[in-house]
C-alpha cells in the first residue's frame, strides 16, 4: 500500500471550495427525498411495535385489521420467509418471530390506502404475549442467571454477542513500575443519529416481471439490495435500488432500515407501498450508538512515560447484534489510544439486552473508548504535574511505530496536530484561565484523536463522451455530506476538465459499479482512490489516440486544464478530449472508458506480538489523526456547561474541498457536543422515555460555540486521491473528552459519565465541596 503514484491534480478544481450542486435545491425546499415520491395507487405502510421488552408471542389475531376498509395487507412473521438477517450474527427477523426482545420491536406490518387507515388498523391487531423477565444492563446480562435473549450459538454466555481479548507485553508485572496509576469507570450513553430525514422507502413491484424497485434513504444501495434479497429469499437480480437525496444518516442507514418490510408489503399487495417513519417510530424501532461502560486503569512513570493500561469494556448492543461486534472490534482496537504503551490488557464484551438495537454511528465504538482514554490521560497529566499536551506528545506514536496488534502507523501526524492545536487555541494563555462571567468558572481542555479511514470494496467507471465531457459512475451514496461534489472534483482534477463538463451519476444497482457503503470515513478516500485509478487508465487511452493525432510519442504529452492533451513545452499544440473521443469512436480503438476496483486490505494482526482472541477484521485501517480543544464555562449554581469556543485540527492529507471539509468538521463537533452534554436515550423498565425531539435534546443554533475553528493540515500520504485522508467520523471522536477535560480544568469535577448534564456536573461540584476540594 506504500507505493501508490501520487500525480498532482490538473487545474485548480482540487482544493477549491466549490459549492455543492445540490445546495440550492435543498435550501429552497425543492430537493426530492424519498418521502416526496408519489406514484399512482400507492399504499402507505406502518409497523406495530411490541409493548413488552421481553415476551413470548403466543398468538396473533389480524382479522379485525384485515376487515377494516382500505386495508390491503396485514403481515406478521407467519407471512414472511423464516429468515434472520444480520451483518455479523444472523439473529434478527424482519418482524418478531416467536419472541419480542425490546419495546417497539416491529411485530406486524400494515399497508393501507392512507396513513390514518393504516394506523387505525394497527389498533385492531391482537397479539397475545407471555411476558418474560427482561435484562437492561450489559454487565447484569452476563451473569449466569440472567434472562437469555437468543438461542445459544456456542460455548460462552448466550448474551455475549462477542468477546475480545488483546494482550501485549506483561501487564500484570508492569504496575509495580508505575509511579502514578489512575483508575476509573466511565459511562457513555445510547446516542441517536437524529438524521433530519427519518427512514423512508418506496417499494414498487413490476406486475409482469415481479421485479422490486426500491427508492430509499440509505448509505448503501448495494447492501440494501443484498439484505432485502436475503430477507425475502428472492434472487438479488430481482431487486433494484435507487437512492434519492438523503437527509443525513451518520451510520444509522448503513444496514437495512425499513426496506425489506416495505418490499414485503409491496409483494403482498401487488401495489407500490411507501413507508416513512414518524420521528417516534424511527427513534423507537431503528438503532442508536452503543451505550458503554468502561473500566480503565492507566499507569505512568514519574517522567511521563505511560507504561501500562488495563481496560474492560461492555458495549450494550440491545436486542440484536446488528453491527455491534464490529463496533466492539474498533472499540478494542483503539483501547490503547494513539500511544506507545508497552503493557496492555484489553477485554471487551458486546452484550445483548432488552433494549433498542445499537449499531453503526459516526465513530463506531471509538468515541466511547476515546472518552475514557482521553479523560484518563488528562488525569494522569494532572497527577504527574505535566501539561496535558506535553504528556500526549511524549507518548504519541510516530510514523513506522506499531499500533495495538502490530499494524504500522503509515503517516503518524498526531504530533503535528497537537502542536498546531496548542498554537491556534492559544493554549498556554487560556490555560491560565481568563476571568469568567460572575457565577461561572472557565476552563480549557483537549483530546488527542486517532481513527481509521477506508474499508472494504469500491469501484468506479469513467468514460469520455463524444463531446469530450466525462461521466463518472461509482455507486457511492452522498448522504448530504457532499461526497458527490468532492468525488467530482477528484475526477475533474485527475483529468483536467472543468466541473461543468463532468457528470457524476447517482447510485442505481442496475447500472452503477459496486460500492460497499458510505461509512467508515471511506468515501472520499476509497472511492476517490478508484476514481483516480480509472482516470489514469482513461488518460492512457487519451494519450494513445493523441499520440497518433499529434504524431508525437506518448512520453511527450501532458494533460492541460479544460480537457485538452498537448505536447509538453509546446503551448500551441493540443487536441481536445472531444476531438480525441471522435477519433476513438469513428477512426480507431472504440469508446474511451475504464473501470477500477479495489478491496481495502485487511488489517494486520501480529500474533507473535499480541495475544488476540475474538477480534475479527473487516479490513479497515489507514490511521488518521486529529486534536480537539474546547473552552467552556461552567455555571456554579446549576452545573450547566457552555462551550465558548472550539478548535478542531485535522490532518486531512490533501484538501479536496475546504468549505465542505470545514463544514463536516463543524458538524462532527456539534454532534460530539450533543454526545458530551445533552443527548441520551432514557429508558424506564424498557420503555423509551424520550423518543421525540422535545424530550431528546440535540444542540440548537444557540447552544453551539461562537466559533468552531476547523484547521486543516495537509500531510499527503497513502492511497487516497492525491494523498487525501478521511475526516468524516474523526471530528466527533474527541469532542466529549475535550469538553469534559475542560470542565475538570474549570472546576476540578472529574466527569466519568456523559452526557455531562447540569445535574451530573452539579452533583460532582457538590461532592468536591463536601470532600473539601476546591
Amino acid at each position: 500500500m506504500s507505493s501508490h503514484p501520487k500525480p498532482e491534480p490538473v487545474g485548480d478544481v482540487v482544493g477549491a471550495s466549490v459549492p455543492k450542486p445540490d445546495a440550492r435545491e435543498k435550501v429552497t425546499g425543492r430537493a426530492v427525498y424519498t418521502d416526496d415520491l408519489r406514484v399512482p395507487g400507492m399504499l402507505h405502510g406502518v409497523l406495530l411495535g411490541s409493548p413488552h421488552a421481553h415476551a413470548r408471542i403466543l398468538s396473533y389475531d389480524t382479522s379485525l385489521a384485515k376487515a377494516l376498509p382500505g386495508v390491503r395487507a396485514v403481515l406478521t412473521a407467519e407471512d414472511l420467509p423464516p429468515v434472520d438477517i444480520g451483518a455479523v450474527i444472523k439473529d434478527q427477523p424482519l418482524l418478531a418471530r416467536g419472541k419480542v426482545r425490546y419495546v417497539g420491536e416491529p411485530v406486524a406490518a400494515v399497508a393501507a390506502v392512507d396513513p390514518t387507515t393504516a394506523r387505525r388498523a394497527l389498533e385492531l391487531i391482537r397479539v397475545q404475549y407471555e411476558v418474560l423477565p427482561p435484562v437492561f444492563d450489559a454487565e447484569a446480562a452476563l451473569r449466569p442467571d440472567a434472562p437469555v435473549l437468543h438461542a445459544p450459538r456456542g460455548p460462552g454466555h448466550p448474551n455475549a454477542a462477542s468477546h475480545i481479548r488483546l494482550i501485549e507485553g506483561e501487564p500484570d508485572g508492569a504496575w509495580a513500575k508505575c509511579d502514578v496509576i489512575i483508575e476509573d469507570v466511565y459511562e457513555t450513553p445510547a446516542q441517536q443519529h437524529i438524521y433530519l430525514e427519518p427512514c423512508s422507502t418506496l417499494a414498487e413491484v413490476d406486475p409482469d416481471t415481479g421485479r422490486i424497485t426500491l427508492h430509499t434513504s440509505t448509505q448503501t444501495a448495494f447492501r440494501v439490495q443484498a439484505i432485502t434479497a436475503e430477507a425475502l429469499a428472492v434472487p438479488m437480480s430481482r431487486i433494484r435500488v435507487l437512492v434519492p437525496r438523503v437527509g443525513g444518516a451518520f451510520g444509522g442507514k448503513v444496514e437495512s432500515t425499513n426496506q425489506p418490510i416495505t418490499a414485503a408489503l409491496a409483494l403482498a399487495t401487488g401495489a407500490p407501498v411507501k413507508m416513512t417513519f414518524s420521528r417516534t417510530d424511527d427513534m423507537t424501532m431503528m438503532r442508536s450508538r452503543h451505550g458503554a461502560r468502561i473500566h480503565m486503569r492507566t499507569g505512568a512513570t514519574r517522567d511521563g512515560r505511560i507504561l501500562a493500561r488495563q481496560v474492560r469494556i461492555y458495549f450494550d448492543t440491545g436486542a440484536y447484534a446488528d453491527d455491534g461486534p464490529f463496533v466492539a472490534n474498533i472499540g478494542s482496537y483503539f483501547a490503547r489510544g494513539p500511544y506507545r504503551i508497552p503493557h496492555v490488557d484489553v477485554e471487551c464484551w458486546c452484550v445483548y439486552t432488552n433494549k433498542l438495537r445499537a449499531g453503526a454511528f459516526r465513530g463506531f465504538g471509538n468515541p466511547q473508548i476515546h472518552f475514557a482514554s482521553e479523560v484518563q490521560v488528562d488525569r494522569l497529566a494532572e497527577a504527574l504535574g505535566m501539561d496535558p499536551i506535553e504528556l500526549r506528545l511524549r507518548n504519541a506514536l510516530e510514523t513506522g511505530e506499531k499500533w495495538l496488534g502490530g499494524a504500522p502507523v503509515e503517516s503518524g501526524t498526531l504530533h503535528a496536530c497537537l502542536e498546531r492545536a496548542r498554537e491556534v487555541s492559544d493554549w498556554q494563555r487560556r490555560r491560565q484561565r481568563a476571568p469568567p462571567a460572575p457565577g461561572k468558572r472557565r476552563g480549557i481542555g483537549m483530546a488527542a484523536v486517532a481513527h481509521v479511514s477506508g474499508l472494504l470494496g469500491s469501484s468506479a467507471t469513467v468514460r469520455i463522451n463524444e463531446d469530450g465531457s466525462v461521466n463518472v459512475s461509482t455507486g457511492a451514496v452522498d448522504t448530504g455530506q457532499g461526497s458527490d461534489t468532492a468525488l467530482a472534483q477528484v475526477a475533474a482534477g485527475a483529468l483536467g476538465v472543468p466541473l461543468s463538463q463532468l457528470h457524476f451519476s447517482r447510485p442505481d444497482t442496475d447500472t452503477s459499479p459496486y460500492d460497499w457503503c458510505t461509512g467508515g470515513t471511506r468515501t472520499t478516500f476509497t472511492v476517490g482512490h478508484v476514481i483516480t485509478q480509472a482516470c489514469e487508465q482513461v488518460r492512457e487511452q487519451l494519450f494513445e489516440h493523441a499520440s497518433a493525432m499529434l504524431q508525437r510519442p506518448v512520453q511527450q504529452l501532458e494533460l492541460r486544464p479544460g480537457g485538452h492533451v498537448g505536447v509538453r513545452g509546446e503551448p500551441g499544440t493540443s487536441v481536445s478530449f472531444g476531438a480525441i473521443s471522435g477519433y476513438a469512436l469513428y477512426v480507431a480503438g472504440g469508446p474511451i472508458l475504464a473501470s477500477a476496483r479495489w478491496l481495502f486490505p485487511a488489517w494486520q494482526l501480529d500474533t507473535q506480538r499480541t495475544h488476540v482472541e475474538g477480534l475479527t477484521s473487516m479490513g479497515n485501517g489507514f490511521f488518521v489523526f486529529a486534536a480537539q480543544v474546547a473552552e467552556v464555562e461552567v455555571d456554579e449554581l446549576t452545573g450547566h456547561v457552555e462551550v465558548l469556543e472550539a478548535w478542531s485540527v485535522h490532518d486531512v492529507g490533501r484538501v479536496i474541498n475546504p468549505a465542505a471539509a470545514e463544514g463536516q468538521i463543524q458538524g462532527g463537533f456539534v454532534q460530539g457536543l450533543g454526545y458530551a452534554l445533552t443527548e441520551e436515550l432514557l429508558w424506564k423498565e424498557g420503555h423509551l422515555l424520550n423518543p421525540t425531539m422535545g424530550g431528546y435534546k440535540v444542540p440548537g443554533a444557540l447552544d453551539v460555540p461562537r466559533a468552531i475553528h476547523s484547521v486543516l493540515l495537509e500531510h499527503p500520504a497513502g492511497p487516497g486521491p492525491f494523498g487525501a485522508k478521511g475526516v468524516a467520523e474523526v471530528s466527533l471522536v474527541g469532542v466529549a473528552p475535550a469538553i469534559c477535560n475542560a470542565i475538570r480544568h474549570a472546576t476540578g469535577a472529574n466527569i466519568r459519565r456523559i452526557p455531562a448534564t447540569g445535574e451530573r456536573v452539579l452533583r460532582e461540584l457538590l461532592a468536591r465541596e463536601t470532600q473539601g476540594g476546591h
Partner: protein
Amino acid sequence: MRYAEPETVEEGLALLAAHDDARCLAGGASLVAMMNAGRVAPGMLVSLHRIPELSDITETGDGLWLGAMCTHRGVAAEPRLRGAMAVVRSAAGQLAHPAIRNMATLGGSVCLADPHTELPAALVAASARAEVAGPGGRRLVPVESLLVDGFRTSLQRGELVTRVFIPRGTDGAVGHHLRFSRVSSDYPTVSLSLVLVMDGDTCRQARVVVGASGPVPLHVDAADQRLVGTRLEEADVAEAGRLLVRAATPLDDVRGSAEYRRMLIPRLLGRALSQAREHAHV
C-alpha cells in the same frame, strides 16, 4: 372537523355553546401539535384570529390590558410593560424560540395551563387577572386561581379568555423572570418569576413564583414574607428558598430529576433576586 372564524367574541361564544366538542384555536402552537400527534381531535375549531378586540392593548392608570391573541413576540416587545409588569415581558421574551414566540399567544398560554412553560408563573408573579367571557357575561379571575391543575383551568365549557390585566404595581417595583433549561429553546427545568420592591438595600415587597416545579405555579406567601424587611442576605434567601422547596412538588422527567429541581430552586432564587436588584438600580 369543522372550522369557523367568528368576528366578535359573542359569535365565538355562540359557536362554543353550539358544539360540545369545540375548541378555541389561538396561535395553534400547542393545539395543532397535539392534533397532529393524535392527542386531541376537536369536532369544531373556533379560530380567534378575526376578533379584533382580542389583539387590543390598552393602558390604564392601574396597568395594562393585553388582548388574549397578543403573541409572545408582541408582549416581549411591549415597552409599556415596565416596572413590576416587566416580569411578563421578560418571560415572553425568553419563551421557547422565535418561531414559537411568533405564533403562540398570551391567552393560549393561560388556557393551556402547561406548568412547564414560562407565562403561567410570570402572570401569577405579576398578580395578573384574566377576563373570562361566557354565556353569563364577563368576569375577572386572578390567573393564580384560574390555574387549578396541570393543563387544567377553572374555565367552564363555553368560556374563553378575552384579555389579561397586568397591574402596574408599586412605584419602583421591578419584575424579572429567570429560566434554566437543558438547551436554549427547551422547556425550562425550573423557572423563577418575581416582583421586587427595594428601599435602598431593604426589601419592601417580594412576590416569588416558581415554574415547572408542580402542577401549577408555586407561590408561597411565607417565602415572600421571609424576604420582606430583610437585606436579602444569603441566610434570608436560603430560608425563603427552603420554604419554596418544602412546598414544591416537582416530578422526575427528561429535563431533570425532582431532586435536581429542588436543588435549583434556592440557587436560582438567589440569582434571580440579584439580577432583579441590578435592574432596580438601572
